[in-house]
């Protein structure tokens, strides 16, 4: 147990005055010249990559699709890295502190089955159809109407997500280094805007792979040293049970038989069907932000195996995100030696100057605890890299959807290729500018993750219903696709507004008044997915289907997939997918 004075030294906490914690701690740490050098070198490297790749982003195919030249490994790492943004690093470390190992559901059942399904089942249709985007696929399958609905909602969501990323990054910089939020936002956005506008998707992908390596290099030390301090996994479990005897932080499935039995307020049906199916499949198989990375693969086999490669890394991410959150439950202490209790952003805001820390500060607190000069810079660089990869992913996807699915079909149909590349570059810059505005909006949001989960179910769940009906049901029609997607999206927004207006409506939306925000998001996703599927089905049955000959390359059962060359078993996507399934099941059993 550490006294406050000792804590100042041990944690590297630097109070504004040395007399009282109540006098506002300006930052957790000060960077040494070595730390600053590490950060500066990182920025120099990403800009070098952007400038270097500018010469390879002259045509629209190069700028928006990276020339479809990425290997399976690069596409797979980029696929995971684009998702490994600020929310992953900070939000889920905070959620692990708040909810325990339950948070790992978002990495395992909430990702792995969907990633494997994308690679093995859906990728051939996306790839063979040669679509430039997910709304582009909808255009080929259901026509311009549903494509426009998907494109506009995606563009809106993407910009808001980008804003979330920016805000998270600025928050870390404020908490850890005391940097001004606006300064952080401007610096990071300028860097992202520059390297994506210069090198297009190829630059975004290359930087994402670089950022992925840095995230692991910078963040992996925290759980390693944390486990040493906590006397291993067994010691950590024993201390958590001793410190929190009434809470179950250590089981993934045991405590979710009823909404009120776990701190997250979720039920296993919500986890399996809401998260494991609708939200997860919606995000990993239809969100263009991630699908775009795989579409850039250099062959169908690469495109199929890339998400499988990504699934292995996704299963490993809890080691650097969830584990630090659990470790924080036992290793973080107040100056008086008592266990530190982190709180929500709203509590921190309501008690300025009290020295409180929010859930989202778990990772920075742990970094400062274990990392000496140089390593601290590396850890901060890992966080910045995560934020930038998330932002770049959103911005590059926004530029592609804006140009291909909104500007080209609705505003200027017959321009030359170089014009669309220019539009893409300007869309990148414009996307960053709008994202900055969104970042300031996010500042008033209660919890970052809850906010994003709400967004997911607004747009992603209906899109999943539409894509699945289009890809696996030949009878689906243009009118069915359009009305299904539109009404599904409106249902989602309406349910959200209903609960916002009348919280007691939760018992209808989530089947229980005990359900909490995340459970509500899962069930809302299920509702709007169901509405999309039902409306698409009913309207399609009353409208004229397209001839089967027009569905080649778009729909299961009407598509002749290209024959792939036989390869040794260890290069086969089915082999690696089977191993991923075994590992996935084993992890869930071990942490049952």
């Amino acid at each position: 147990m550490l006294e406050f004075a000792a804590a100042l030294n041990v944690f590297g906490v630097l109070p504004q005055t040395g007399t009282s914690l109540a006098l506002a701690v300006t930052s957790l740490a000060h960077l040494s010249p070595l730390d600053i050098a590490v950060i500066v070198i990182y920025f120099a490297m990403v800009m070098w990559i952007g400038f270097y790749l500018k010469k390879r982003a002259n045509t629209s195919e190069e700028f928006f699709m990276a020339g479809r030249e990425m290997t399976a490994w690069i596409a797979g790492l980029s696929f995971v890295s684009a998702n490994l943004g600020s929310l992953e690093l900070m939000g889920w470390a905070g959620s692990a502190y708040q909810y325990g190992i339950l948070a790992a559901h978002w990495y395992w059942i909430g990702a792995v089955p969907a990633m494997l399904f994308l690679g093995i089942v859906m990728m051939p249709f996306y790839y063979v159809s040669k679509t430039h985007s997910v709304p582009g696929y909808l255009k080929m399958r259901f026509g311009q109407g549903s494509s426009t609905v998907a494109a506009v909602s995606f563009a809106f969501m993407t910009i808001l997500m980008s804003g979330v990323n920016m805000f998270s990054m600025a928050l870390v910089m404020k908490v850890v280094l005391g940097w001004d939020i606006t300064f952080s936002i401007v610096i990071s956005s300028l860097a992202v805007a520059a390297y994506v506008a210069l090198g297009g998707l190829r630059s975004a992908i290359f930087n994402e792979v670089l950022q992925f390596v840095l995230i692991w290099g910078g963040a992996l030390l925290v759980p390693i040293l944390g486990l040493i301090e906590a006397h291993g996994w067994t010691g950590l479990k024993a201390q958590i049970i001793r410190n929190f005897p009434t809470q179950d932080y250590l089981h993934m499935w045991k405590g979710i038989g009823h909404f009120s039995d776990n701190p997250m307020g979720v039920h296993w049906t919500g986890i399996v069907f809401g998260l494991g199916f609708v939200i997860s499949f919606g995000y990993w198989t239809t969100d263009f932000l991630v699908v775009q990375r795989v579409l850039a693969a250099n062959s169908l086999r690469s495109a199929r195996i890339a998400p499988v490669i990504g699934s292995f890394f996704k299963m490993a991410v809890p080691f650097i995100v969830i584990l630090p959150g659990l470790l924080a439950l036992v290793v973080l202490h107040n100056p008086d030696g008592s266990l530190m209790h982190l709180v929500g952003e709203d509590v921190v805001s309501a008690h300025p100057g009290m020295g409180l820390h929010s859930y989202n500060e778990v990772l920075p607190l742990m970094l400062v605890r274990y990392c000496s000069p140089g390593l601290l810079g590396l850890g901060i660089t890992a966080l910045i890299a995560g934020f930038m990869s998330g932002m770049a992913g959103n911005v590059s996807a926004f530029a592609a959807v804006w140009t291909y699915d909104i500007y080209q079909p609705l505003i200027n149909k017959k321009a030359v290729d170089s014009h669309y590349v220019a539009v893409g570059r300007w869309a990148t810059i414009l996307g960053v500018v709008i994202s900055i505005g969104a970042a300031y909006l996010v500042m008033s949001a209660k919890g970052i993750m809850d906010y994003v989960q709400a967004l997911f179910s607004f747009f992603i769940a209906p899109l999943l219903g539409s894509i699945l009906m289009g890809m696996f049901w030949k009878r689906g029609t243009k009118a069915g696709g359009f009305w299904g997607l539109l009404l599904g999206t409106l249902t989602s927004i309406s349910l959200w507004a209903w609960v916002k207006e009348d919280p007691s409506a939760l018992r209808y939306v989530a089947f229980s008044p005990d359900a909490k925000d995340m459970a509500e998001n899962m069930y809302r996703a299920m509702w709007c997915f169901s509405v999309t599927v039902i409306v698409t089905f009913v309207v399609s049955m009353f409208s004229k289907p397209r001839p089967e000959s027009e569905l080649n390359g778009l729909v299961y059962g009407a598509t002749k997939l290209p024959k792939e060359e036989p390869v040794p078993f260890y290069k086969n996507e089915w082999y690696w997918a089977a191993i991923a399934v075994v590992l996935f099941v084993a992890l869930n059993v071990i942490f049952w």
Partner: protein
Amino acid sequence: MESTKSPNSGDISIWFFIGVLLTIYGAMIGVYGLWELATGAWKDSNVILANLHAPIWWGGLMLALGLFYALRFRPGKA
């Protein structure tokens, strides 16, 4: 799995960029760790478990990985 090289993505592979960055970081952090050890500065360190000298072994690991990738994927190598 396929080759990790991306021959059509320009003259320089992404793995070379990664190798260069890891080499620089590994050298900087490792040298700092050695300096800390040699001068005894780690005893005054503000971090937990400073006695484990993480900068030395973590920096060394990054340096080794960085050199491997930088050399393996250096521009012009067949």
